[in-house]
């Protein structure tokens, strides 16, 4: 029974997307509500399926589905171990949240938004579930194609330029990935992850081929020095699209890096220094890059690079504690970052700009939004009792246990730099008064006209738009996700247990291979 469940997260969104596009054809003016309903319903259904799979995986079962009923070794295999199921739950949750946010920002008025988001999510679910490298390539492409359209569809000059950069970089990475798969097939004669277990430890050509695949995935995960496409493109698109991308695309890259290194290299300790160097560089370069940015979303997207370094650090330690901390970090980070990007998106939609120099005084005007930002920013930094603290504490202790004192120091140091960056945004947007005078006419992107700022009774000025306060629908998704960060910090035990189980599954390559290849 649970074997059939495995195929639902892939098939259901694809079918729904196809039907939505067909049924709304020729009626561009129809209301977005039915599509919204279908999108939310399907994503909620996938969330339920993912929760069922996760509880099953935590009980020790490892459901395996061979598509088409072909025997092992020939069939394409889908498998849900704890790591995959956990990622599936988070992804489904994030898709649901970003669909809700897109409804609030009005981005889903475009009749292709919901279908494209569904296709994208189905590609992500497939990539998380598959145990076949070529199938992983196909699912990554299924995920990327709608992302190309989402990034550029509602064009403006800047989105087009960003879209070109995004498409070409990802196409190059996909080409390299396919070359890696071909090389691996040439050396090992199979692309089934179960049969490929530990292949890179035994043969040097297979190790090179696996490294080519890892390189392609490092581009998709935006690991330094292959990161520079991410901050330039993510901040150029619509706010809800950024939220969707942040939680899904790079995380598939990170997932694939962890899975491939765990299975193909069997956690080979000879190459860990390379991963460690990349992880530390990614953490430091990402956080320093954010210092120079002057608008909310560019700051946050640069921090994404830095946070990817944290997850990679857990992989580079390759101990039970390190991997568990990385998985915990990944799960809570997806939610926290989405909350932050939703705050930035809500500010941009409501006030017409994300520019730090032009915003101010939102603390008084949007207390709910300020609360959501404060909580999720502190969670990102890692202040107790929020979820980021548990994750970073886990990473630091795992690094110290391995005598990697430099890594532990970087974990703490980069957190401090993150704090200064978040404080910069907090001060500029929420805490300090709005700048004197209306400088809105500087930027060509500034859509919302603004009245001159009147002084309020404390002598400070506030940003006064034509619009009044933001609608609750814009702030609610961010608040809910920020609330989850508090819950995961105070009541971390269930997720910690699940993350530890996921790490055990990653360390035990033989069990994974046996489950995938069992007749």
């Amino acid at each position, binding site marked *: 029974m649970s074997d059939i469940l495995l195929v639902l997260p892939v098939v259901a969104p694809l079918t729904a997307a196809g039907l939505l596009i067909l049924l709304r054809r020729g009626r561009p003016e129809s209301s977005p509500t039915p599509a919204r309903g279908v999108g939310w319903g399907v994503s909620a259904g996938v969330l339920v399926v993912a929760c069922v799979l996760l509880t099953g995986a935590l009980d020790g079962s490892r459901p395996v589905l061979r598509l088409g009923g072909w025997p092992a070794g020939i069939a394409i295999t889908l498998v849900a171990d704890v790591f995959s199921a956990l990622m599936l739950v988070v992804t489904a949750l994030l898709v649901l949240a970003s669909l809700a946010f897109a409804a609030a*920002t*009005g*981005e889903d*008025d475009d009749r292709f938004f919901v279908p494209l988001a569904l296709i994208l999510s189905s590609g992500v679910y497939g990539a998380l579930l598959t145990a076949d490298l*070529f199938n992983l*390539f*196909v699912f990554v492409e299924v995920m990327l*194609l709608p992302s*190309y*359209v989402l990034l*550029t569809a*509602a*064009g403006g000059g*800047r*989105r*087009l*330029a960003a*879209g*070109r*950069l995004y*498409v*070409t970089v990802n*196409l*190059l990475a*996909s*080409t390299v990935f*396919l070359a890696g*798969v*071909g*090389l691996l*097939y*040439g050396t090992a004669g199979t692309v089934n992850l179960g049969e490929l277990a530990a292949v890179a430890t035994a043969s040097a050509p297979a190790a090179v081929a696996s490294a080519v695949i890892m390189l392609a995935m490092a581009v998709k995960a935006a690991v330094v020095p292959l990161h520079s496409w991410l*901050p*330039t*493109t993510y*901040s*150029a*698109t*619509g*706010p809800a*699209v*950024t939220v969707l991308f942040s939680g899904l695309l790079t995380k598939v890259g990170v997932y694939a890096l962890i899975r491939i290194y765990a299975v193909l290299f069997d956690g080979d300790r000879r190459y860990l220094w390379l991963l460690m160097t990349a992880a530390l560089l990614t953490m430091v370069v990402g956080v320093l890059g954010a210092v120079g*940015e*002057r*608008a909310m*979303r*560019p700051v946050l997207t*640069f921090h994404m690079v830095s946070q990817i370094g944290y997850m990679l650090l857990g992989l580079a330690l390759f101990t039970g504690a390190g991997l568990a901390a990385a998985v915990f970090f990944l799960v809570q980070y997806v939610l926290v970052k989405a909350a932050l990007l939703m705050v*930035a*998106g809500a500010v*941009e*939609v409501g006030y*017409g*700009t*994300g*520019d730090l120099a032009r915003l101010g005084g939102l603390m008084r005007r949007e207390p709910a939004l300020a609360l959501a930002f404060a909580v999720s920013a502190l969670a990102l930094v890692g202040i107790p009792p929020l979820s980021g603290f548990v994750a970073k504490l886990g990473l630091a202790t795992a690094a110290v246990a391995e005598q990697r004192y430099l890594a532990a120091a970087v974990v703490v140091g980069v957190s401090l730099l993150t704090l200064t960056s978040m404080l910069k945004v907090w001060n500029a947007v929420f805490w300090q008064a709005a700048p004197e005078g209306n400088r809105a006419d500087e*930027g060509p*992107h*500034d*859509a919302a006209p603004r009245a001159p700022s009147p002084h309020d009774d404390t002598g400070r000025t506030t940003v006064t738009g034509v619009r009044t306060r933001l609608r609750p629908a814009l702030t609610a998704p961010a608040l809910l996700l920020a609330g989850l960060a508090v819950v995961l910090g105070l009541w971390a035990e269930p997720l910690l247990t699940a993350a530890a189980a996921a790490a055990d599954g990653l360390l035990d390559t033989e069990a994974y291979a046996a489950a995938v290849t069992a007749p």
Partner: protein
Amino acid sequence: MTAAVAVGVLVAGGVYLVLQRNLVRVVLGFVLLGHAVNVLVLAAGGMDRRGLPLIGQGDPATAADPLPQAFVLTAIVITFGITVYLLALARAGGADTERDAVEPGDDGVGGGR
């Protein structure tokens, strides 16, 4: 050997074109790179075995490996789709191919339109 030379030439041409500034040339470069990888994947199945890969017809020892061919078919379809989309992007940008730098510090307004 032929396959290796073909892949090498295709990759060289592809890399040269991808590094050009004009987007149409970049697209052509990706077409070449895609072909190079397709030949590579086909070569991974063994270039000397070319018999029919059907059970009961022909000797299994000389039968071609059908799996890389299936891979390549899938990859061709995907590359074709992305190539067309890239060409559409080039067309949408019009004469803008020279000005494709994005400033990360640009006002990050995406707006909900």
